[in-house]
């Protein structure tokens, strides 16, 4: 029984019933069930317009509370637009200095969603210059909601 870990036992099964889950198939399952809303290019453009409008007025706290935690963009038809939206969220988080007062207004679900954005931003190379500011947010969320917030991020299959 050498190398038993490497045997893909599902390939020996003639039916396809035991399939390995991929990130895409999970996302599609959620979309089919109507749990995740797929943003069309038009909808996402509107959202980006609204968010960038507020950011240009230096109104970061309201843009975070009114838009970012209210409209989670899990899926979009155009991946480029999704990245553009993420760029705006990143701008918003980096420029917001008064974290404590915002944290008071965030519910647990809002904070969980914000944590997803934080991890996504930290995982992409182009945003890593401001990593210390993002990790500050993660820190504050964990202080308020405990390590359970990280566990919820890991187990939640709805990913940004």
């Amino acid at each position, binding site marked *: 029984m050498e190398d038993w*870990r490497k045997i893909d*036992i599902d390939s020996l*099964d003639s039916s396809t*019933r*035991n*399939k390995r*889950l991929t990130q895409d*198939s*999970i996302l599609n*399952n*959620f979309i*089919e*069930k109507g*749990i995740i809303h797929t943003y069309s290019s038009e909808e996402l453009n509107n959202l980006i317009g609204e968010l960038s409008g507020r950011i240009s007025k230096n109104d970061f706290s309201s843009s975070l509370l009114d838009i970012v935690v209210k409209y989670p963009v899990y899926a979009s038809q155009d991946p480029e637009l999704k990245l553009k939206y993420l760029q705006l969220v990143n701008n918003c988080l980096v420029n917001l200095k008064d974290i404590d007062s915002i944290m008071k207004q965030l519910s647990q679900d809002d904070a969980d969603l914000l944590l997803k954005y934080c991890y996504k931003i930290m995982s992409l190379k182009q945003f890593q210059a401001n990593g210390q500011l993002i990790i500050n947010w993660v820190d504050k969320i964990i202080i308020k909601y*405990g*390590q*359970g*917030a990280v*566990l*919820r991020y890991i*187990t*939640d*299959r*709805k990913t940004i």
Partner: protein
Amino acid sequence: MVNNNLSKLLLSLKEPIRSFSLNNNILALSQEETLLIYTYPKLELIGSFKEHDKRITSIDICQADGKILTTSEDRTCVVYAPGRSGYTTSLVVTRFLKSINFGKWNQSGGKFFICSADMGQLGVCYFDHETNWWISKHISPSPTHLSGGSLTQGASWDPENDVLVTFGDNFGNLTTVSTFLKKLDDKERLKGSPYGEKFPFGKILKESMPNANGAAINDVAYLPKDSSKVVILQNDGSITLFDNVNGTTITRVFDSASGKPFNKIEFISATEFIVAGFNDAPLLYTIENGSSIKFLKNLSGASKSNQTAKIGGQQAGAEEEEEQQFASGIQALKMFKDMDTRGKQQAYSPSSSSNDETNVHVMPITDISFDTDTLISSGLDGKLIEYSI
């Protein structure tokens, strides 16, 4: 409030106890592939069986006639029937392709269900007198419902009729099915059930995804007096009171002290229940007005802070050692290589704590069982601990 005397160490074994069951003064527990049977409360060993060639995943003793059921990763179940000259064993052959994770008798002892890792299927097994053989029938929810879920772990019989089963899978789907068998079940008991009118075998009565987050469901329990509601434990550490008939979440709470997920739930009265899992201590919760869940107390002898203080001495030492070990990156790399190639799992070896005779768990709790006013819990650290409530 220090009340250490309320919990007592019953057994401290070498291997992790992954499951156990207590009924009519018989205690059955697993040590990897071996089933050990003790008398309770004297704890004399009266039997040891090695019928499986892979790890035993769950044990259940039938309330009605004391038959013991073990399920295993080797895709089979074994039924141990008590007789005058000890237990006679009979193998239950299933057509599952993967591990069987959980099995449970119904109240009358005529049949049991088994949960598998094979595409979220539920097996229902019963004894056929004509062929003198245990028969296993499968119930398969449609792939569109499962949406990728495959491993079912937690399931529960409906306490009102002993026929309906609700089970959860690793994608967070909750399914209620009927296991009605003409020969065994009584139609009268199903009258007035909130789940519908007709209950042919294998009919899927309810499908839902509580909390819509796809987090694995570890265990499910019906409310003892209201079978339209269930409490589910999810892998994100949440305890959810769920209206299974309407498919809505009533309330959802988290254990703020540890934030870790729970493995097992057991009701001790109509409204009070105990959960235990990766936080290493059983917690008592209550349902208020059928609409909110409230934390009552930690049963693990001492309060949370005491508990950490008590084992703190040992842990601090171990942590320092660990830190030193990790100071050298090469050693850490070697450790992970060992874990990968040789299947070594240092983190889950109870031998590291074999000298530990304290009455608290130091590793995750795997199973709990409640009888009149005592609760027993088993852990990966090989301990069996009794609590009085």
